[in-house]
């Protein structure tokens, strides 16, 4: 027996599997929405539901088994061609999937119980029954019959022996036969009930039956096998191609559990063998040499002259490659995220201590020692990169979720919108992806709600009636860029400006360029939608988007052209665990500036700033606002004679940070500072240097924002406000 702990671990496994299956099912459903007759999608959907039902049954989660059963039976009918899925039915099924998903989330892992909202489920099931689909007007069997004259057709012989467990696993024999009939015409069918026990001993839940079927079809063997894909584990399936050699039938007769005569009679009855052939072969059977090696099926086929050797080779190769693909799929390992985090943490420690060792070796001046620490460092670097790659996942899964969002939201608003996804295989850190889902949803909803116009308006503007929403992701200089673009009417610069003045976000006389005005929509409590819809327009969205992206050390940009469309471009670091930094110091303290923000370094001429905390310099004819970091952070005044300026670039702002010494680039592990420092502006984290000393990582974005607030609230504090406002204030 399993102990409680193992049980809840298994249950946890089921919950994770369930989430995956539901996600898969949703993708298939959405695919069916576009192409209603995609057999692969129907099968995939059915398979997902079936697996879910089966696994839930293992854990006695009756509500899930029960609910999923309804979906499964409906899908079975769809698969058999008895129904088609209407868009309304797909909507109901999506809601059913949501219900299943919420049931899966509601499972109490500790005791395996599940509370459900019966009334809601009953409602959903009623809706499902109502919208379930229509029986197509034309019978499915009509099609193959029309082609029955095709020359390649022949009678396949299919011999099935079911295992006793079949019915207990929720399969219905009739449905398979029905499905089989879609492939061709069933010419002959005999139920084998020889294994049926006496009535008194009969277990009604066990299956004792077998089937012998002759099927006339153009389908290949693989296609016939596919029909029985779900029950392959629960039955013994033998398929003989049309016009098989006598010996093949003979082999079949011998392989079947029933007496040779019984099977032989069936074959004769089906017209595959003549009575004469049967009698002859049965008598010949005795003369077959016992020691004769069994020939492989392929060889047999070639020998009998019906299949050319290269065809067999090709088929074998195909089989081989599909086997290999299966192997590579199953070679993935599921690892708990915290184990991965632990590994990456340890690798981070290793990076730090290896750097420390190198530092000591250099201090010792022992050439051999230095060399070996360098080798160690190279390996550590490789390990670090490999470890970080473990966390990288493709963004495609996150993007695909938006098919559903776009479908739901556009239906609600009565707009026809097509979602276009590019760069789904772009990889980034899982922790980044997790935090990205919400801001992306906001932006997508906004684009649908506010960006893309209703169909009439689009027609008037000479655009196609179907709106286009595009999600794109790509790598660019060590960052990932995610674009959300729509072909709607773009941002209304004038209205944003008016609104910003009305809300007191900007002064009436302030003269901002178009880009700066667009960025105002990220200000807190800013919404230009006249009507508050339940989708967006409450003005809480965009500043949430901004802060979520800031928290990821990213930036967001807007490209909007009136009447043509709008693109939000989000730039994010690939990972949150490691940062490429530029090390500087202020007196005793070390600071790390994120390297991608550093544009250049200058030597500071003392006269220029004259010891002021803030000021500006002439950088190639442009005023460059400068901050004396030491003074800004109220650190003890430095006595360094030669000071330097690090010019940083953030978005379209540029500024100089006055520091003491430059120590160059370093790649380092970010250590969060913890709750005590969570509201600290200008510093985002810390890192440990090779020497063991802690260096603080500067957060340029929040530093700029804080300075901006200071400029606004207390301009007198700054020596000269004008250049600051030009550069920092935009």
């Amino acid at each position, binding site marked *: 027996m399993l102990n409680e702990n193992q049980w809840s671990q298994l249950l946890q496994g089921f919950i994770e599997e369930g989430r995956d299956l539901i996600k898969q099912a949703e993708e298939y459903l959405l695919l069916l929405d576009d192409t209603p007759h995609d057999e692969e999608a129907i099968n995939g959907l059915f398979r997902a539901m079936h697996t879910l039902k089966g696994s839930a049954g293992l854990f006695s989660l009756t509500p899930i088994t029960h609910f999923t059963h309804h979906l499964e039976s409906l899908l079975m009918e769809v698969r058999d061609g008895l129904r088609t899925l209407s868009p309304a039915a797909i909507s109901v099924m999506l809601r059913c999937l949501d219900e299943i998903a919420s049931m899966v989330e509601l499972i109490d892992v500790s005791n395996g119980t599940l509370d459900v909202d019966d009334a809601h489920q009953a409602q959903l099931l009623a809706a499902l029954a109502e919208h379930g689909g229509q029986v197509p007007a034309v019978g499915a069997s009509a099609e193959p019959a029309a082609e029955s004259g095709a020359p390649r057709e022949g009678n396949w012989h299919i011999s099935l022996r079911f295992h006793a467990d079949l019915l207990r696993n929720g399969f219905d024999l009739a449905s398979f036969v029905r499905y089989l009939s879609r492939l061709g015409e069933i010419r002959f069918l005999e139920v084998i009930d020889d294994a049926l026990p006496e009535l008194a001993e009969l277990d009604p839940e066990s299956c004792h039956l077998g089937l012998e079927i002759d099927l006339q079809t153009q389908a290949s063997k693989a296609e016939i096998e596919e029909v029985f894909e779900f029950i392959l584990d629960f039955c013994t399936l033998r398929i003989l191609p049309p016009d098989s050699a006598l010996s093949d039938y003979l082999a079949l007769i011998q392989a079947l559990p029933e007496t040779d005569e019984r099977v032989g009679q069936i074959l004769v009855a089906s017209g595959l063998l003549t009575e004469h052939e049967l009698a002859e072969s049965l008598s010949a059977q005795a003369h077959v040499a016992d020691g004769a090696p069994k020939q492989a099926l392929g060889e047999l086929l070639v020998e009998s002259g019906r299949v050319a050797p290269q065809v067999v080779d090709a088929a074998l190769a195909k089989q081989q490659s599909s086997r290999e693909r299966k192997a590579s799929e199953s070679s993935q390992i599921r690892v708990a995220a915290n184990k991965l985090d632990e590994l990456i943490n340890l690798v981070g420690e290793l990076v730090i201590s290896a750097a420390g060792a190198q530092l000591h070796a250099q201090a010792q001046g022992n050439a051999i020692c230095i060399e070996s620490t360098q080798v160690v460092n190279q390996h550590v670097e490789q390990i670090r990169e490999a470890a970080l790659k473990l966390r990288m996942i493709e963004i495609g899964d996150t993007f695909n979720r938006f098919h559903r969002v776009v479908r739901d939201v556009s239906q609600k608003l009565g707009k026809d919108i097509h979602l276009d996804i590019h760069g789904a295989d772009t990889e980034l850190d899982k922790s980044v992806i997790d935090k990205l889902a919400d801001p992306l949803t906001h932006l997508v909803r906004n684009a649908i709600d506010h960006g893309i116009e209703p169909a009439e308006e689009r027609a008037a503007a000479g655009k196609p009636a179907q709106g286009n929403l595009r999600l794109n992701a790509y790598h660019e200089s060590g960052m990932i860029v995610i674009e959300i673009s729509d072909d709607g009417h773009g941002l209304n610069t004038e209205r944003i400006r008016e609104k910003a003045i009305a809300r007191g976000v900007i002064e009436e006389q302030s003269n901002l360029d178009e880009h700066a005005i667009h960025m105002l929509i990220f200000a807190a409590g800013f919404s230009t939608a006249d009507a508050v819809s339940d989708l967006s327009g409450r003005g809480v969205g965009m500043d949430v988007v901004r802060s979520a992206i800031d928290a990821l050390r990213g930036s967001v940009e807007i490209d909007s052209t009136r009447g043509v469309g709008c693109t939000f471009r989000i730039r994010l670091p690939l990972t949150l665990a490691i940062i490429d930094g530029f090390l500087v110091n202020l007196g005793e303290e*070390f600071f790390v500036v994120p390297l991608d923000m550093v544009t250049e370094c200058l030597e500071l001429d003392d006269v220029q700033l004259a010891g002021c905390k803030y000021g500006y310099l002439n950088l190639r004819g442009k005023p460059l606002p400068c901050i004396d970091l030491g003074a*800004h*952070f109220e650190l003890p005044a430095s006595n360094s004679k030669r000071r330097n300026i690090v010019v940083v670039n953030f978005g379209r702002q540029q500024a100089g940070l006055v520091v003491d010494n430059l120590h160059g680039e370093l790649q380092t592990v970010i250590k969060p500072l*913890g709750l005590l420092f969570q509201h600290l*502006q200008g*510093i985002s984290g810390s890192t440990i240097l090779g020497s063991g000393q802690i260096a*603080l990582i500067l957060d340029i974005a929040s530093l700029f924002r804080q300075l901006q607030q200071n400029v606004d609230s207390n301009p007198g504090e700054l020596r000269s406000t004008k250049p600051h406002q030009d550069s920092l204030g935009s």
Partner: protein
Amino acid sequence: MNPSILAHESPQGAVQHLSFRVRQARYALPIELVREIIEYGQITTVPMMPGFIHGVINLRGNVVPVLDLAARFGFERTEAGNRTCIVIIELNLDDAQQNIGLVVDAVDAVLDIEPGDVEQAPAFGAGIRTDFIAGMARDERGFTIVLDVRRVLSLDDILQLALAQQAG
């Protein structure tokens, strides 16, 4: 040490406390909170924080914030001396385990404090904010102030102070 001896030494019901000195007064903390005691040294200043936060230290690869108890109580900021120590305690703040270092002037001893020996804090006169005091433990040497660590390290309080500091 043999645990049975320990159990024998501490009388029934008594809770072990670590006692230490901040300025002239004696304070104590339940020993189950204390992870270790380290020498004062190599602290990285974190700018724009209230004076009682000295900064952060590197504790075997973990970045741990360090608070000056004296400054938190309203005294002058501690100038490190020979006996100045950092007591590392582990607290559950906002559902996350967090290590915090407390700067104290000297560590005294481990006391067994009987619940019966703990008096309520006087309304005033203890020298520190009354809500920081969990109780006053009496022994032959006088009173030891048992701290209410959650109050002393109240995140809300500290954040308010930090925000005030940044705004100023």
